[in-house]
């Protein structure tokens, strides 16, 4: 079925078109919306696009980085100042998908996708959104929890603070097919150290719930402690708390619960 394509020069106009039409979807890199159209998704009757340079801007020079929603993973990988995000960007798709898929789109990618959003969740990112009546910034966790209701708003950019060191941010995607494959589980950890102790631990998990979630019990086990064997063991054993994984072709819910602690332990202890 043919759809109406509306192309705007500004993100604000595109956001207006998106908010006024329930059957409109924003087209970024195409890996989600074109796929839905190819599958015959009749709920989409309008495709909205914006050719706004602000959507493809990367600001990675300072301590706080901002990625326009339309920035592709290939561009993240080409940016030396974004080295801390290279592991999650590289874990997505093959080269063609990385040339197309965008940072903003990944926030909407359902399981077993959305790996970049797992990294951004561990980094406490902020999502800048534009609705029909103005823009606002919301924490990524809040965004992800209400993701199903975000269809009428346009994501403009995502920003986060650069981790203090390469050790402070860690990422691990478990896939059956290498180098490319959907996520069995995805883990990201941000472990800022202050005076030898972890202050502000963030553990984010993908494929362990309907959306990307934080492993709060594991975070509590790490908070205020040094990253020693006992602390790592406590965090690993708390990893499943609050999770609700499901079965899919890549793994069962049972399997995901079994392995998440093992991989969290390996991630925190720096094992390959």
């Amino acid at each position, binding site marked *: 079925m*043919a759809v109406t394509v509306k192309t705007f020069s500004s993100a604000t106009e595109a956001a207006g078109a998106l908010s006024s039409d329930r059957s409109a979807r924003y087209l970024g890199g*195409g890996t989600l919306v074109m796929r839905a*159209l190819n599958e015959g998704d009749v709920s989409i009757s309008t495709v909205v696009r914006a050719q706004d340079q602000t959507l493809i801007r990367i600001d990675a020079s300072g301590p706080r980085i901002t990625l326009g929603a339309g920035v592709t993973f290939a561009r993240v990988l080409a940016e030396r100042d974004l080295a801390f995000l290279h592991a999650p960007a590289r874990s997505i798709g*093959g080269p063609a998908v990385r040339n197309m898929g965008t940072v903003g789109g990944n926030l909407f990618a359902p399981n077993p996708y959305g790996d970049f959003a797992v990294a951004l969740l561990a980094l406490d990112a902020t999502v800048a959104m534009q609705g029909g009546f103005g823009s606002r910034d919301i924490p990524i966790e809040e965004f992800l929890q209400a993701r199903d209701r975000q269809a009428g708003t346009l994501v403009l950019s995502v920003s986060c603070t650069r981790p203090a060191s390469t050790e402070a941010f860690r990422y691990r995607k478990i896939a059956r097919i290498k180098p490319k494959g959907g996520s069995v589980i995805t883990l990201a950890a941000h472990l800022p150290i202050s005076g030898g102790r972890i202050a502000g631990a963030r553990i984010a998990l993908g494929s362990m719930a309907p959306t990307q979630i934080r492993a709060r019990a594991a975070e509590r086990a790490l908070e205020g402690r040094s990253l020693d064997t006992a602390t790592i063991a406590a965090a690993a054993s708390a990893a499943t708390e609050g999770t609700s994984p499901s079965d899919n072709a890549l793994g069962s819910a049972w399997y995901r619960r079994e392995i998440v602690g093992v991989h969290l332990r390996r991630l925190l202890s720096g094992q390959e």
Partner: protein
Amino acid sequence: MSKIPLQFRHNGRDVAIFVDGGTNLLVALRELIGDMTPKFGCGQGGCGTCSVLIDGELHLSCLTLAETVAGRSIETLDGMKQGPNLHPLQRAFADNFAAQCGYCTPGMLMAAKALLDRNPSPTRDEVIEAISGNICRCTGYEPIINAILAAAGGRASA
């Protein structure tokens, strides 16, 4: 619903077509231009057999909205051969038995071309990474990897 006029460069030749809203580039190439080299596999971005180069960059034509390529340059396998001669990659695929059923071959060749255009002497790991978005169910990949390395080696010594 009215058709949308669309012009772009297809293997070095300017083309003009009319597309329906929402038409993907794969359908535009196959049904409106008659270039049958990009194949329809999954329609989901999982198999890579519809791969084409857009302004030299590897893209999945089934997930590309046709009208977004207005004014851009599209390369498909159809444009790869050099006159009556096969492209060195095509020759290497034949010499190394890298095509069995052949359905993945157009996408594999475009992914390989995207790699070699950017990196003329890739390592084996770089070749594996470059075709990681392309699924082959026949060959077990080894002959394909060998063919791409052979083409790169031939090119380097030529």
